[in-house]
């Protein structure tokens, strides 16, 4: 049974050039205790998708012309703001990329964690503080009883991100959305945070959506992976299938461009060009201007997501010809 199902989500923003779709027709499901990875280049619409789940877009400049987000028998896109506020931070929690700017610099760690607990669980200040210390312990911050009174600037980047995680899991959410939780961190600290998230997921039994542009991080963490390009899902597959037998040329290109650690290469294979400006609509397949396997047909009709195997979908005409089930 799925905890959350996003169906044909389309999100558009008001820009100088009119309304522009930042995300188009995105669908996916997350089962109980599952980890879903969303990967894609900067600007591919990963964060927009995540923010839509929590209804965090500015109403004045955002339109969601199409789609539904099914959660616990309701459509989150149509839930009133009051009810949404209860879900947000309670049942569905989110961790953001930048641990400095998402913590309030003038409040201590205890204050920031307690705030969530008092709001969602109606705890008293003293009880919330006790629980905050327990949470810091849970996210493996040494000497939690003292650290709880620190201000964000007194903590290192890795510790701040742990505090963010502590806030996110304070109410034992059913679903945790982690939007590039380790991008601002060092490689060794990144490994610590990923280990922590994995352990917590086991301990609390939550589902996790991990967003990253780093295929290595995704491979390490996710069981299923969604690859986004220019606002669309181009491929979706179980992690093992995706990394062993990618179907979409974009996915293959990304995988090839990762510098190898265990052997020398003279030149890295690249995907020429860069992600298209979202204000410039491309007819047909959005990846076609950069694709080595492009055919005339790619430029005229946008390909649909087609099933290629067990839980494996991809959006590519030439590669799927004759293969689609």
């Amino acid at each position, binding site marked *: 049974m799925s905890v959350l199902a996003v169906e044909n989500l389309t999100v558009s923003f008001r820009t*100088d050039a009119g309304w522009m779709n930042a995300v188009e027709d995105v669908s996916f499901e997350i089962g109980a205790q599952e980890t879903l990875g969303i990967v894609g280049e900067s600007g591919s619409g990963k964060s927009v998708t995540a923010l839509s789940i929590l209804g965090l877009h500015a109403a004045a400049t955002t339109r969601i012309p199409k789609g539904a987000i099914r959660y616990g028998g309701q459509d989150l896109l149509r839930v009133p703001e009051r009810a949404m506020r209860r879900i947000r931070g309670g049942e569905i929690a989110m961790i953001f990329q930048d641990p400095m700017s998402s913590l309030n610099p003038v409040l201590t760690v205890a204050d920031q964690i307690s705030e969530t607990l008092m709001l969602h669980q109606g705890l008293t200040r003293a009880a919330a503080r006790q629980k905050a210390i327990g949470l810091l312990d849970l996210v493996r911050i040494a000497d939690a009883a003292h650290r709880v009174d620190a201000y964000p600037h007194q903590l290192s980047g890795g510790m701040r991100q742990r505090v963010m995680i502590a806030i996110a899991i304070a109410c034992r959410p059913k679903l945790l959305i982690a939007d590039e939780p380790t991008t601002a961190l060092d490689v060794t600290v990144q490994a610590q945070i990923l280990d922590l998230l994995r352990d917590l997921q086991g301990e609390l039994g939550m589902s996790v959506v991990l967003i990253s542009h780093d295929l290595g991080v995704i491979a390490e963490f996710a069981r299923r992976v969604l690859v986004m390009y220019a606002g669309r899902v181009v491929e979706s597959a179980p992690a093992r299938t995706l990394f062993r037998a990618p179907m979409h040329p974009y996915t293959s290109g990304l995988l090839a461009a990762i510098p190898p650690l265990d052997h020398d290469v003279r030149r890295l294979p690249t995907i*020429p*060009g*860069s992600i*298209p*400006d979202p204000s*410039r609509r491309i007819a047909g397949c959005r990846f076609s201007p950069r694709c080595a396997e492009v055919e005339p047909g790619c430029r005229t009709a946008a390909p649909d997501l087609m099933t290629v195997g067990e839980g494996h979908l991809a959006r590519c005409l030439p590669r799927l010809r004759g293969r689609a089930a």
Partner: protein
Amino acid sequence: MAEADGETLAPRRRLQIVRRLARHRSFRIGFTIVVILTLAAVLAPLLSGIDPTAGRARLRFRPPQEAYWFGTDNFGRDVFTRCLYGARLSLTIGLGVALLSGVIGAAAGIVSAQFRRIDAVMMRLMDGLMAFPAIILAIGLAAAMGPNVGSLIVALSVAYIPRTARIVRASALVVRELEFVDAARVSGAGNWRIIWRHLLPNCMGPLLVQLTFVFAYAILAEAALSFLGIGPPPPAPSWGNIIAEGRDQAIDSWWIMFFPGLAISLATLGMNLLGDGLRDVLDPRLKVET
């Protein structure tokens, strides 16, 4: 690799700044207001045949009417005509103070930010200036140079220099830490090149906004000072001294203060819109509203 080809739509950009200004809505409005006010000042003798300083006892305290659009004052002088001529003094003072305090303030702020050794001295100097009442300074200058427009502009400029300097210094301190400044240094750029090419252009936004405020404050301050008898002597009208003279009749003859007050608001609004437009257009990152 031709990845950037056609990704952005910009062919040649020669008269680009002018074109962007022309497209900027608030710049257009502000520009129109300022041009109209300036024309009114320059063409005052053509727009009104009345002598702005000649009093006519018969015509005292006339409310606005067909012959005297803005009414008349306690000497029977036409307020409309006085407002036209007053624009000459007021606009000169506003612009003069904005320019003088802008140039000196920006220079002081940028030099403080770039040459850290003189920063402390410079900022104490600015604090000293800020603490020194502009009125006393104006009285002193008026005594030394005679009560004329020049001494008033200098006195008011001195009063506004410290604030402008602080604003420019604050933004220059941020800019000088950015990597493009280091890039210039690696190539051997000297302090002056860094100031001209890197710091100043990137401090323009806050500076322009500050100067539009200075413009408005200067016009108002001139009013206060003329009231005290400092600055240009009363017969020559300025918006400030028309208001000052109309103070005693504010209740019964509201028009004497109202119309020059309106002119000051209009000029301030115009300058503000103009300043916003300049700020936006000089910043290549901002898309210009149309």
